[in-house]
C-alpha cells in the first residue's frame, strides 16, 4: 500500500504541534498585554466632556483646593461632583459671557443638571470609600495623578484590581502627611520645600530633613500613626 503521507509531513506535523503551543502561549500573552494596555483600560485617554473643564486651570492657575468642589471627599464614599451653583459662585462674575460656559448658565437658569462623563469608573461590584483613604493619608494624586497638569481630564491609572491591590498590600509605600494630602506633588517632590521643612520641624523634629532616607522613615512613622493596615480581605471592596 502506498504511503498516505509524504515523509515531509513528519516535519510539518512536528512544527505544527510545537507551533501550536507557542501560538497558544502567544495569544495568552497578547491578551494579557491587551487588558493592561491603555486601549483596553482607557487609562491616560482624555474623556470628552460637554464642557471642556480644565483641572489644570482651576487647580494650578487659580489654586482652588480640591475640597471646594469635591465637598464630601473627606466624609463620604463619594467625593462629590459640584452642583451647578458651585460653578456659578465664580462664573456669575468671571467669564460670565463666555460661550464655553453657556451650558453651565443654561443648567443654572433652567434647573437642568449637567451631565458629565465619568472618568474614574470602578465596576459596580467594587466599593471605594474616598473618606477613609484621605483620612489614612493617601494623597489625591496617588490615584488621580497630577490633576493640576491635566488641561482635560483623563484617568491616570488602569484602576484594575491588580493596581488597587499593589497599594492595599503595602499601603505604607504611598502614605503622606495628612497636611499634604491635597497637594498634587509627590512626597519626594515636596521634600526640601520650605513648607515641608516647617511641617517636619513641628511634627517630627527627630527627623533630619537632609537625610537621604527621610521619605522612607517618615512613611514608617506615618504608617504607625495612621494605623495603616494591609487590607486585602475581599469584603473590604466587594460586598
Amino acid at each position, binding site marked *: 500500500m502506498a504511503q498516505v503521507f509524504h515523509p515531509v509531513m513528519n516535519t510539518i506535523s512536528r512544527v505544527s504541534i510545537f507551533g501550536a503551543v507557542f501560538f497558544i502561549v502567544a495569544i495568552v500573552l497578547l491578551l494579557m498585554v491587551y*487588558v493592561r494596555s491603555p486601549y*483596553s483600560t482607557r487609562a491616560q485617554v482624555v474623556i470628552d466632556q460637554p464642557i471642556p473643564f480644565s483641572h489644570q486651570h482651576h487647580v494650578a492657575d487659580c489654586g482652588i483646593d480640591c475640597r471646594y468642589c469635591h*465637598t*464630601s471627599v473627606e*466624609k*463620604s*464614599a*463619594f467625593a*462629590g*461632583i*459640584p*452642583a*451647578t*451653583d*458651585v460653578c456659578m459662585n465664580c462664573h456669575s462674575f468671571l467669564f460670565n459671557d463666555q460661550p464655553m460656559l453657556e451650558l453651565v448658565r443654561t*443648567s*443654572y437658569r433652567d*434647573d*437642568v*443638571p*449637567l*451631565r*458629565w*462623563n*465619568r472618568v474614574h*469608573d470602578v*465596576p*459596580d*461590584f*467594587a*466599593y471605594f*470609600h474616598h*473618606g*477613609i483613604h484621605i*483620612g*489614612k493619608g493617601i494623597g489625591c494624586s496617588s490615584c488621580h495623578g497630577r490633576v493640576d497638569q491635566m488641561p482635560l481630564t483623563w484617568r491616570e491609572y488602569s484602576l484594575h484590581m491588580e493596581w488597587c491591590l499593589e497599594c492595599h498590600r503595602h499601603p505604607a509605600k504611598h502614605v503622606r502627611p*495628612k497636611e499634604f494630602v491635597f497637594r498634587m506633588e509627590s512626597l519626594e517632590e515636596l521634600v526640601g520645600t520650605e513648607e515641608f521643612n516647617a511641617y517636619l520641624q513641628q511634627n517630627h523634629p527627630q527627623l533630619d530633613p537632609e537625610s537621604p532616607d527621610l521619605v522612607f522613615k517618615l512613611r514608617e512613622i506615618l504608617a*504607625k*500613626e*495612621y*494605623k495603616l*493596615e494591609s487590607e486585602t*480581605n*475581599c*469584603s*473590604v471592596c*466587594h*460586598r
Partner: protein
Amino acid sequence: MPRKDAHELAAMRKRLGGQRGKQWWRSLEELAGSEAFQAYLSRQFPQQHNLLSQGTSRRQFLQLMGASLALAGLSGCSEEPADAIVPYVQTPEEIVPGKPLYYATAAAVAGNVLGLLVESHEGRPTKIEGNPDHPASRGASDAFTQAAILGLYDPDRSQTAYRRNQIATSRNFAENLAAERDSLLQNQGAGLRILIEPVLSPTLADQLNRLAEAFPEMRLHVWDPVRCGQREAALELAFGEEAATLAPVYRLDMADVVLSLDADFLASGWYPVRYADDFMHGRRLPADRAGRWTMNRLYAVQTTPSLTGAKADHCLSRHLAQLEAFAFDLAEQLGVQVQRPPGLPPSEVPQRWLQAVAEDLRRERLSDDQAALIVAGEHLPPRIQALAAAMNQQLGAIGTTVTYYPQPLRNLKAAQGTGNNPVQSLRSLVEAMEAGDVQTLLIIGGNPVYDAPADIDFAGALVQVPFSCHLSLYRDETSRRCLWHVPRNHFLEGWSDLVAEDGTASIVQPLLEPLYEGWTVHQLLAHLLGEADRTDYEIVRAYWRQRSGTDDFERWWYETLHRGTVEGSTGEPQSVTLRSDFATALSEAQNNSTAQAESTAGQANNTSGSGAYDVVIRPDPCVWDGRFANNAWLQELPKPLTKLTWDNAALLSPQDAEAAGLTTGDLVELSAGSRTLQVPVLLLPGQPPRTITVTLGYGRRNAGRVGSRQGFDVYPFRTSDALWFVHGVQLRKLGTKYPLATTVHHHLIDPKELEERHIIREGTLSELNAQPRHPHFVHPGHAVWQARPWKRGEANGNGHHGEDGHAPPVPTAYPEWDYSDDLEQHRYKWAMVIDQNACTGCNACVVACQAENNIPVVGKEEVIRGREMHWLRIDAYYAGDAANPIGPSFQPLPCMHCENAPCEVVCPVAATTHSKEGLNEMTYNRCVGTRYCSNNCPYKVRRFNYFNYTGDLRELPVLQLLQNPDVTIRTTGVMEKCTYCVQRLNAARIEAKMAALDGGQHAGQASGQRGDSSPDNAAQNGANQNSTTPHQAAHGISVQTACQQVCPTRAITFGDLNTPSSPVSEARNHPLNYELLGELNTRPRTTYWAIVRNPNPSLIDEANEEAT
C-alpha cells in the same frame, strides 16, 4: 424502611415508638420516612431538577463545553459601559452625597400603626426600620412594613386616573368632582356616601367631621375585612355602650401567666410587634434573687395552629364550640357568675388541665403590678371575648395587665347611624346603593368588590351608583368597577398623621415626591370641602398648628418630625368595670345569636360522626387580607407554619386526611350550603381534627402582574354571619392535584442522624434550675461538645464549658486563623447569637434581609425546584407525634460564618474566603458557579443564581430605585449567602476609624473635643459616640445587622467577640449557648440559645404518668 404513602399514621407511630427522648421533625413526610423525602434528601442538588430536560448526547455536551469554555474567558473582557455623573443644580443643604439620611415617619401597613425610620439615599428611600422612640415599634417592625418599600416601587402601582377604565387625568377628575360637589351642596349632601378603612389619622377625622358639617346628609361607612367589629362588640357587651370606643392594650410584660383563647397576639393580632416584645420580656430568663431562673408561662387553646400556640408551654387545639365550653368551664372555676349556655358540647379539655390553668391564673402574686392575663382572639364571637374580659376582672388583671385606652377616632360624627360595626356599616351602604339612595360614592382605600362578605353584593350594588370613585394604590377589582379610579400616594409620598392604639400620635412624613400623579386622602377630601388648592402638607400642618397649643409652632413641628411622635399625645388608660348586668347581657347575646349557636351545636354533634367540617378563616400571614397580593417579597415568603409560598391552601389534620384519603396538593371542594370553594389541601401537624383552616387574600383578579390569579379566593365562601368560622362544611375530593410550592423540605440539614445531631435543643425551666450553670439539655450526649471551649487556645472567660480546666481544642486540618486582638489596632471578631426562645417565627427578619441585601424573588416554579434565594430561612421543628405535636420550635438559619468553613476549602477559584475578622466572604465577581461550596455546606445556607432573577433593571427603571446601593446586585451563575450585612460592618468600621483618626489628630490640641469628632452619621450607623480614646472609639462600635434590627423580640444579638463586655460575648457565655452541628468542628460564629419552656409541673407529672 422508606414508605411510599407519605403520612401514614401507623408508620409515624412506629417510628416514634422506637425512639427514646425527644424526636424533632420538620414535616410529616420526614416523620413517616417516606420515599419522596428520602429521594429529596439523597440528591445533593434537588435544585438541578430539570436543568437539562432533554438528554444531551456526548457530542452536544462537548460542543457546549467548548463554547462555554470560550465564553468563560470572554465574559471577563466586557468593556465597562460609559457612565454619566449628574450632579445637583443647587446643592441640597443636608445631603452629603454617598451617605444615607434617616427620617422619622409612621405607617399603618396592616392596620397597626408603627413608628418608622426610613433610610434615604439622595432622596430615594431604600429601607424601612422601626423608630426606637415609638411605643408600638420600639425600633422593630414586621414583615409587612419591611415589604412596604417594595410596594412603593411596585411597577404595577396605578400611575394615572381612570374614567370608565379609560385613562384620564387628575385635573379631569378634579373638575368632575367639583361639579359633583356643587350639585351635592344643593341638597345638603344627600346621596353622598364615603366608604373608608378604619380611620387612624386625626387630620382625616377632622376633615371628615368638617365634611359632615358641610354636608349634613352625608354618611360615612367603615369597612375592613379583618378588623370587623367583634372586639368592639365584646367591649360593649362587657363594659357597656361607651366602652365600644376603647382599645384594650395588654401589658404582657407584667403578666406571669398568660392564657390565650385563640389569640395570636405574637403574630397576627393587634400590635404584635409590641406584644411580642412585651411577652418575651417576661420570658427572657432573668434570675431572681436566689439565682434561680424565672419566666412567664403561656397556655393556649386554639382553633388552628398559630405562632402564639407554637410558643405556648401548654397548647390545646379545639373547635370553636369546645373553646367556648372551655371558657365557660374556666369562668366557673374562677368564680365568674355567668350562666353556661345550653347546648354547648363538652370542651374535652382534661379536668386536670383546666384546674391547673385556673390555679395558675388565680395564684397570689408577689407584687401588685403583676397579674395573670387572659387574651381572647379579636375574631372570636363577642360573647367569648366578653367572658375573657370578665375573667380578667376577676383575676385583677384590668388596670394591671390589660388597660383600656380611649380611641376618639372610632367615634366619628359622620359615621353615626350607619351601624355600629363594619359589617352593618357595609350592609347599610349596600342597601342604600340598591335602593338608589346613593348618588356619589367615594371609596377611600380598601377593596370592597373583592373583600366584601359573600352575602353583601357590593359589586352588584356599585352599578347603581352614578358617580363612584375609588382612591387606591392599585387599579384593583373595585377600581375597575367604579366610574373613577384615582391613584393614591404611598405613605412615603404624602403627608398625614396616625394614632397608635395607646393614643400616641405621629406625623407621617413623606420621603420623596410622588412618583406618579397620585392623590392623598387629605387632598381628595379637601377637594370635597372646596379647598382644592390646599396641599396635604398644609392640611396636616394646619390641624397640628391648632392642636399643638404652642406659640412656637415651627419649633414644635420640626421637633415632632425629628422625634417621630407627638410629645404628650399618649393617652391615659381609662378605668372600666364590668357592667352590673353582665350575666344577663351575656346570655342575651347568646340567645341573639341563636342561629350561630344552633350551628355550633349541630357541628358539635357532627364531630363524632363523619359528616361536616368546621372551617376557620384567618387573614393570611403573608398577604393579609389581599392588600399585599402584588408584593412579590411577601408572596414568596414561606408562611411561618406551613412554609407555603405563592398560594393559600386548606390546612387539614393528618388524621382527617388519612380518613378522607387526601394528601398535600389534592384539590378538594368545600361546600357550605350553596357556597363552594375549590382549594388544595395541605396537611399541617397540630391542626384540630374536623377543622379546616383557609386564609384570605388570594385569588385576586386584578392585583397586578405578581398577585393576580395566585391562590384561591376565600371571600366568596365568607358570609357576614360567619366571618371567621363556618360550620357544617362538606368536603369533597376532586381527584386532581395542584402544585403547591412549599419550602419545608428545602435546605435540609441531613436528618438521618437527627437524634444524634440535636439540631434543636429544648428543656424546661425546672431542668434549667436543676443545673443552672450547665443544663444537660444544652449539651446532650457528646463529651466533645461539653469539653471544648469555643475559643481555641484562649482563656475562656467565665464560660461554662471548661469549668474543670480547659480541654484542648479538637484538632483540625483546616488552616489556623488568628483573630487575636491587637492593642494598637483593634481587630473585630464578629459573631451572632440567636435566642431561639425569643424567636416567634414571625418572618420579619427574612423580609428585612431581602430588603437590605437586594435579594431577588424567583417565582413559584423556581421555588418548587428549591431555588428560593432567601439568605435567612426559618426552620420549624416539631416534636411529638403528628396528631398532637409540640411546637414547632423555630430556628432562624443565616450563614454560620464557620471558623473552619467547609465551603472555603472546596472553592477552586477562591471566591469564598475567610476574612481576618472571621467573616466567611463571598466574592461574586470571582465566582464561576461550581456550587461545590453549597454541596459542602452542612447548614445549606448558600443560594445559587440559576437565572438572572433580578432581571434587567433598565427595563423597569422604578425597581432600580429600590436597590440598596451598598450591596452588589448578583447575576446568573453566582453563589450568594448571608454576609452578616458586611456593608453595614464596613460602613461602621470606616466611620469608627475616621472618628478615631480625627480624635488622634486633635488629641494634642483639644482633648475635650475628641468625643465629638464623629459626625451625626456615626450615630445613624450605630457607632458609639461616647468613646474617649481612639482605640476605644474603634473598639466600641456597635452595628446592627438587618435581621437583628427588625426583630420585635430582639432574639438576635450581634457584635464583636474581641470586646469582652459586648452583648454578644456575654451571650456566648450564657449557659444556654450551643453550636449547631458543633460536632463537625466547623466552629460556627453563629450560635444558638437552647429553648426553655416552662410547663406547669403538675401537668408534666401527668404526662409522665401517662407515658409510664
